[in-house]
């Protein structure tokens, strides 16, 4: 945990200073997760604020500070999922602004080495995002939390409130689909 359980307990009881402390401790990690889940850098902060507002209003329902992190992750996943649904309704693509951002990053890069690194990173991002298109939005979020964020099955079980075995099966199937797409891309020489 990034904060002491006492701070969470204080925030739960309505201490706004403690709540500020909790947000300050977790905001960078949560923004990073949101960035990987929604893939649109320009909306990351907006979704992040939504997560912490939801946290503020649901904190009093938290039974014990020990389950705070899975609770926060659950709010994060739900906020990302809501955002992606809204995006889908508006008919916009999840990755629409990524290339623009890559260009901006490449422009701002000082040296050619940095430029190379940035373009390599952009290539990796685009490739993995293309692989993720072979699974559903729900499975992509689950797979990202497990494989990219590095959450354990136990943590995922707490976040989703689903049996560990059911999660294992779902993760295995999603990974198999991504692996199949990866093998196809390798065979076609797209790596």
């Amino acid at each position, binding site marked *: 945990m990034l904060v002491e359980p006492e701070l969470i307990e204080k925030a739960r009881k309505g201490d706004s200073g403690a709540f*500020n402390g909790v*947000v*300050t401790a977790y*905001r*960078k990690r949560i*923004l*990073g997760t*949101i*960035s*990987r889940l929604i893939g649109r*850098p320009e909306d*990351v*902060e907006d979704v*992040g*604020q*939504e997560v*912490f*507002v939801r946290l*503020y*209003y649901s904190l009093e329902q938290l039974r014990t500070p020990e389950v705070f992190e899975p609770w926060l992750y659950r709010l994060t996943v739900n906020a990302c999922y809501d955002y992606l649904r809204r995006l889908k309704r508006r008919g916009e693509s999840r990755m629409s602004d990524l290339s623009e*951002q890559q260009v901006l*990053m490449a422009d701002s890069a000082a040296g050619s080495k940095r430029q190379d690194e940035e373009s*390599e*990173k*952009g290539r*990796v*991002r685009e*490739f*993995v995002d293309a692989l993720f298109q072979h699974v559903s939005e729900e499975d992509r979020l689950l797979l990202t939390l497990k*494989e*990219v*964020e*590095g959450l354990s099955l136990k943590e995922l079980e707490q976040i989703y409130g689903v049996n560990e075995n059911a999660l294992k099966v779902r993760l295995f199937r999603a*990974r198999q689909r*991504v*692996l199949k797409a*990866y*093998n196809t891309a*390798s065979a076609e020489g797209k790596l």
Partner: protein
Amino acid sequence: MTEADRQLDELFERYRAACPEVEPSANFMPAIWSRIERRGSFPLVFERLTRIFVAGAAAACLLLTALTALPARRSAPAAVPATYADALYADSSAERTYYTEAVRSTDNLVPEDYRH
């Protein structure tokens, strides 16, 4: 674990490193608090509107009660009976009065032997 599996794990690691770190802006915290206040003020506005509506409904209820009670009081002393039963009762009581008056007026015409 196959070679492809291992390569995929490696790719996920590179992907994590390739995703840009997002630094929160200076406005991050104030924006959260203004959202909290905005969302918190909505139920208050709703509560206030509900109270106004309930008070208005109670006033309208009282006014309607008063309006229905007033004509009833006005019609009470009117000469015309309100119902058929009342009219019947008024009619029969008038007959009884005439009958009693007639008995009284003819009382002295009855011979003394027949009087009680």
